[in-house]
């Protein structure tokens, strides 16, 4: 066995890799949120940002491929650990009790799978446009003179998408679940990496909890603001 497979095969090693991939995914979440919030700076800011991502070309596919690999590793290892953990206690207790473990910490695979389902839906919704093709296929014309060109009107797509109660509801649920997942995940990273001390751990726990819910709330701002007609009123179907 190579050192890496041994490491990944061990409970502590696998947990470490789950933490590393989790960290990368968290960074992605932060970046994604920052990009999304451009919506509040208007159509041009949003669409320019989207366009610049498209212009990355090969690099974009590299990033997407990397992200996919990270995602897959995170999920596969976490599920493998979960199965191992379930088999570690074949017979349970007749009288169950929990002293201090939070619901979030006990439901990471469940919340993780909900987030996964959401991501797939989200991709089908806004990246591939499979769910609402007409709302997806909106374009705007930009530039002037000879340089007039069409580009994907991401701003309008989002605004149109979130005028649906169904989607707003789905996104709200998904973001609450993401918040739960992150509320345990972020502070847990420090433990898995081996940073813990009586003085800074309580601070970390508080900060991580806050960050998790700020991220979830940040994402929620968009569908809610659209649904409440605080942004995007200029977009017409």
């Amino acid at each position, binding site marked *: 066995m190579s050192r890496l497979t041994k490491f990944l095969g061990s409970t502590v090693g696998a947990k470490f890799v789950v933490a590393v991939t989790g960290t990368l995914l968290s960074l992605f979440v932060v970046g994604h949120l920052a990009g999304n919030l451009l919506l509040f700076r208007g159509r041009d800011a949003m669409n320019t940002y989207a366009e610049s991502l498209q212009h990355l070309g090969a690099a974009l596919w590299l990033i997407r491929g990397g992200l996919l690999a990270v995602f897959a590793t995170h999920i596969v290892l976490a599920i493998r*650990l979960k199965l191992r953990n379930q088999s570690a*206690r074949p*017979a349970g207790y007749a009288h*169950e009790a929990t002293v201090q473990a939070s619901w979030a910490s006990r439901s990471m695979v469940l919340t993780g799978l909900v987030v996964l389902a959401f991501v797939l839906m989200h991709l089908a919704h806004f990246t591939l446009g499979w769910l609402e093709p007409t709302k997806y296929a909106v374009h705007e014309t930009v530039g002037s003179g000879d340089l007039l060109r069409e580009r994907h009107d991401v701003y309008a797509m989002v605004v149109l998408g979130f005028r649906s109660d169904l989607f707003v509801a789905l996104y709200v649920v998904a973001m609450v679940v993401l918040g739960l997942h992150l509320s345990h995940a972020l502070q847990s990273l420090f433990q898995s990496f081996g940073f813990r001390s009586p003085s800074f751990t309580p601070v970390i726990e508080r900060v991580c909890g806050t960050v998790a819910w700020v991220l979830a709330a940040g994402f929620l701002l968009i569908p809610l603001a659209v649904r409440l007609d605080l942004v995007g009123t200029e977009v017409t179907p």
Partner: protein
Amino acid sequence: MANATGTMRLKLHIWRQKGPNQSGAIKTYDVTANEHMSFLEMLDVLNQELIGKGEEPVAFDHDCREGICGSCNLVINGVPHGPQRGTTACQLHMRTFKDGDEIWIEPWRAKAFPVIKDLVVDRGAFDRIIAAGGYVSVNTGSAPDANEILIGKADAEEAFGYAACIGCGACVAACKNASAMLFTAAKFAHLQKLPQGRVEADRRAVRMVQQHDAEGFGSCTNQYECEAVCPKEISVTSIARLNAAYRRASLRSVEV
């Protein structure tokens, strides 16, 4: 709280299992106890009654009855060692309960701790984890003078905090994943805090984790139920230490 005379009537739901390969079930018993009794003394009362009736008494592990040998291992109302923090079942006193209470008593549950009989389980896996590396390799007679190894008071205290582990297995019983990480890490961290233990820390980390996994314990997912039920209140900081050390040791070239 008991009634004025200190006696209390209790309904006990106890896991009964004749042998390792037989199936078991919860059986219910009524017992009259006294608030000054320890929890195990209350079980003694029940057992004396069962013997009187010609039934087999409830088997449970116990020995020192002063909270240090680590023998006693009862899950009481879903919590290893019962409701009082930092207390083994043998040190738990009936004044913690009320007259008329119903109490569930079950064995440690983990694949790596198979039930032998009733509430008795086989914790041999813990010995094997220690045998894999939970020691300092020093033969008798080869030690330098004790004061040649200087250890700061704070380090000695922290090491003691980890070394206080009594190997009872409550951490495993409480962990939703039946992980023995707190047990394993407590020994690792105890020795890592001391200069004499640092020399072979890499080998120790790798071998102890390998053995932990081979025994069929689950993985730690940072829920800290173990810390909450540990009768010696050992900190999960030990686990953080082992996490980091295991990573370093695995990535460095250590032959183990």
